[in-house]
């Protein structure tokens, strides 16, 4: 256990190293650049590789290439770069290549406000790439969680063979907190499933007892094909409906069956009649508002979502059975609120939205709790 004063972005980099990250490719962008700087310094010390690519498209491409080569890989960016990465988030989902993408959200759209926080990429993280695909999106509220969720992001990515997005915001990314970091050796690491069958038996996208087939790195003696085209279990392109349907069902199922494992929420009095559902830096304001409200003997609960996608609908459904009002504060014009409304019903949901570069303050949330 080491006590450190550390920034959220630094915690992401250390979390990546603790998770076994051996490759980083990125392009400088505020407010995520510290992650690249720290890994440029630290990765070569452990024999890992860092490369600054010519843009964000190339950065995620290089990460996927390195992951195919057997290395745990990560990139980090912010809104404009995240937009450019969408093409390869889809490629990683289609080809089932593990990789971690960190998006330290800033105010958008477009260049927006590079140093102002935002939670405007919630829907982009879910649906930014074209086509139906499963995705895992995690969002930390503190520096320590930035470390822990980065580790989780790598573990989920390897376990489910999927891109995982760590959706930070500028506040959590740049904020410094005193944190205790675990000994990297004590951090649980998930390694991707490998294969030991004779090479001619190996089916990179099937022929397995699990929905997550083992993945052999290039160069290990299992020669196979990877393509962004729809493919059969051997990896070859197909237009056959009877091969496409089972594939599509499997990649959805592998995440759906893992929802219990993937869903991370923190609940504090979530059986109250008024419950605040929050995530990221906004959850910090919500926690303070709930504390102030309780000092005034107001009964209010708090649900902090650490997993945003797949959306924790079972948790929200349970909360909505006892709650009369669900307050959803967000630094956007109402993105995750749409999901809460879908599960809880629109009449129960009260939105608090700010998309001007300012945080949602505890007072704003407190006013809402008090029914003002």
């Amino acid at each position: 256990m080491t006590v450190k004063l550390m920034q959220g972005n630094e915690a992401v980099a250390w979390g990546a190293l603790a998770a076994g990250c051996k490759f980083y490719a990125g392009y400088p962008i505020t407010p995520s650049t510290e992650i690249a700087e720290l890994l440029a310094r630290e990765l070569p010390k452990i024999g890992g590789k860092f490369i600054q690519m010519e843009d964000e498209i190339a950065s995620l491409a290089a990460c996927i290439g390195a992951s195919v080569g057997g290395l745990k890989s990560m990139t980090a960016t912010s809104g404009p770069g995240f937009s450019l990465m969408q093409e390869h988030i889809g490629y990683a989902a289609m080809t089932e290549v593990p990789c971690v993408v960190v998006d330290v959200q800033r105010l958008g759209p477009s260049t927006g406000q590079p140093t102002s926080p935002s939670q405007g990429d919630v829907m982009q993280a879910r649906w930014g790439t074209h086509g139906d695909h499963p995705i895992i999106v995690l969002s930390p509220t503190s520096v320590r969680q930035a470390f822990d969720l980065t580790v989780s992001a790598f573990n989920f990515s390897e376990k489910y063979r999927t891109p995982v997005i760590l959706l930070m915001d500028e506040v959590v990314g740049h904020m410094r907190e005193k944190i205790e970091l675990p000994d990297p050796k004590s951090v649980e690491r998930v390694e991707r499933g490998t294969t030991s069958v004779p090479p001619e038996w190996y089916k990179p996208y099937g022929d397995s007892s699990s929905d997550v087939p083992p993945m052999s790195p290039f160069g290990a003696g299992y020669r196979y094909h990877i393509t962004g085209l729809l493919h059969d279990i051997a990896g070859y392109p197909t237009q056959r409906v009877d091969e496409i349907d089972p594939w599509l069902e499997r990649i959805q199922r592998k995440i759906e069956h893992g929802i219990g494992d993937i869903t991370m929420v923190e609940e504090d009095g979530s059986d109250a009649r008024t419950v605040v559902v929050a995530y990221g830096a906004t959850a910090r304001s919500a926690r303070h508002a709930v504390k102030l409200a309780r000092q005034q003997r107001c009964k209010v609960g708090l649900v902090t979502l650490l997993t945003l996608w797949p959306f924790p609908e079972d948790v929200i459904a349970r909360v909505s059975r006892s709650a009369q009002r669900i307050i959803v504060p967000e630094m956007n014009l109402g993105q995750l609120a749409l999901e809460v409304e879908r599960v809880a019903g629109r009449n129960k949901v009260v939105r608090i939205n700010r998309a001007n570069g300012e945080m949602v303050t505890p007072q704003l949330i407190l006013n809402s709790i008090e029914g003002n």
Partner: protein
Amino acid sequence: MSHEEHTAYSYLRQTKKFPNVWCSGCGIGVVMGALIRAIDRIGLLKDDVAVVSGIGCTGRMPVYLDFNTMHTTHGRALAFATGLKLAQPRLKVIVVMGDGDALAIGGNHFIHAARRNIDLTAIIVNNSIYGMTGGQYSPTTPLDQLATTAPYGNIEPPFQVGDLAMAAGASYVARSTVYHAVELDRYIEQAIRKNGFSLVEAVSYCHTTFGRINKLGTAVDMMRMLKENSVTKAAAEKLSPQECANKIVRGVLCDLDKPEYTALYDQVIERAKMGENGKQRTAGGL
């Protein structure tokens, strides 16, 4: 001949893949054959070769080849290959691209891969057109030629692929045509052997789009044009610039020895592992 056929056969995937997607008479198959013969001549193990491609007709080449193969996104093959090469430096990573793929949507990745001088072998099959989408003009379509998106003639000057690669920093650049298959074999072999970024431009044709729109005849007619319209570098040096203007100049355009990226990165690792004063640092310490 039969021996050559047999050689190629043993490098092709036997299951589910044929017939291939290319039009009969297409030059891409010649380049695939040349690549196989070059790899066979060097004696590389199939497990030690990766072939990475982007999108387009040439992008379909890897699926037929019994190596570690990756068909990526449009224009980005070199960026994927860069990550793969860094992760597995012992792999011979060969990147096959078309002219639109490598030089339009992938132009930025192309010049930066060359600039880094990372040990990748790029093969550009240059048929001067977007074939798969049906004949739109590309960055190598000659001036005044017709394309479905240049119905009044192309007004954009084409890239000189070799000059671009050399200016960007490639170690080895060669050009030949799909008519000169034996020459292609040799250049691809040299390119793979080169430690650094190497490029072979294989000038080809697309008789089903470019040829049809510009009334250039059959595949055989276009193949003959490659023969009649190209000169060796040595012969070109004896011609006036006017005589050379519309000729395809074949030959090794550059062959340099320069520091290679993955080797330089190994030095970065060495430096990082040693402290400033030469002491071993604790790896990954908090």
